[in-house]
């Protein structure tokens, strides 16, 4: 039977979760047999394809672009997994949530800038009022907390999902 389509994306995250994904070491081989990586920062596909089976999404939804990306992903993937604390709880990105966005930008890009102080607008997506977890905007099928999530937990989740059975996760922890 044809291999399943796997995708990974990172929104407002630090790519630590993707590093943890690579830490699967030889575990990657078992995954490679079951699925093709059709879209990921690790491969050079440009457009998120339709008909993806499983997508791992790292990072919080912090900007307008994150949100539109997430909505497109949800429409085109069968299963969506929140990978890591930022996706599950908005983690570190959420630490700006108590500060109004304009004040934040003024503080950093005007007061704090020593050369051409101005709030950037060209080619930079607008910030949402708050950085929020994925499940505040779309239905998420599986959550994998951890900063970064443990590689063995990622493997356990991935192989279960690819084989279509309910995943039995080891004791994962936030943070």
């Amino acid at each position, binding site marked *: 039977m044809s291999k399943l389509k796997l995708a990974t994306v990172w929104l407002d995250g630090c790519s630590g979760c993707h590093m943890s994904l690579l830490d699967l070491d030889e575990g990657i081989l078992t995954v490679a047999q079951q699925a093709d990586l059709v879209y990921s920062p690790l491969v050079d596909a440009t457009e998120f394809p339709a008909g993806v089976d499983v997508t791992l999404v790292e990072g919080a939804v912090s900007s307008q672009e994150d949100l539109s990306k997430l909505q497109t992903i949800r429409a085109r993937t069968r299963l969506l997994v929140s990978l890591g604390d930022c996706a*599950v709880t908005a*983690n570190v990105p959420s630490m700006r949530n108590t500060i109004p966005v304009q004040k934040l930008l003024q503080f950093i890009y005007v007061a704090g800038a020593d050369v051409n102080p101005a709030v950037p607008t060209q080619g930079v997506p607008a910030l949402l009022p708050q950085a929020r977890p994925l499940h505040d905007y779309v239905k998420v099928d599986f959550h994998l907390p951890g900063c970064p999530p443990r590689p063995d937990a990622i493997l356990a989740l991935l192989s279960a999902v690819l084989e279509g059975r309910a995943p039995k996760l080891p004791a994962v922890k936030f943070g």
Partner: protein
Amino acid sequence: MAQKKISIRIDGELVPALEGKTILEVARGAGRRIPSLCHMDGLKDVGACRLCIVALNGGRLVPACTTPVQEGLAVTTNSPEIAAYRRMIVELLLVERNHVCSVCVSNGHCELQSLATSLGVTSVRFRYRYPSLPLDLSQERFVLDHNRCILCSRCIRVCAEVEGAHVWDMMGRGIHSRVISELDQPWGEASTCTNCGKCVQACPTGAMAEKGWAVEEMVKRTAQVAGAAVRKGVSL
């Protein structure tokens, strides 16, 4: 007064107990695991976090920490409903304030965090509140970060019952409640504070910590303070 020896049934097993002891004490004495957060050995129990709820005779849910044992009691320490309620309580605590575990000084040594793991909480169904809360660095040895506080009042009780200074208390009401020192003054200006640091050791999360520790480095000496409290015989 001599306490009468009685026996109660925990999860079907007969367990000896002394009348007047709480279900939590008897269960833990018999090696039964019941989660708790606002309980600390040696301090008077307040029944605030409700994590230690158990079913009495298969029916009503009661907090094990404040319910005394009686002859012939049948206690169920866990059931699908109890587990679901406990998970929901942990989710509510995680949502109430800013528990950013990855950059917390108590990461890996926090009672709330380990409870989330043991109860299988992998995400929070409620909407995070992200409240704006103060950080008090005025005390030269300790730091108070309200973002990590779960209002369990262990700090208040240890300071009042063991140290006797009663520096801390709870101000406000409901969701706006907050731990304060004296007239909501910075900790460093609290004249009645004896700098004993028992509150820091009693605090189950990263809300109170000793200065100088980085992320994941703050390990609390809760057991020593609890031992002192028990020896002081305050809780009876």
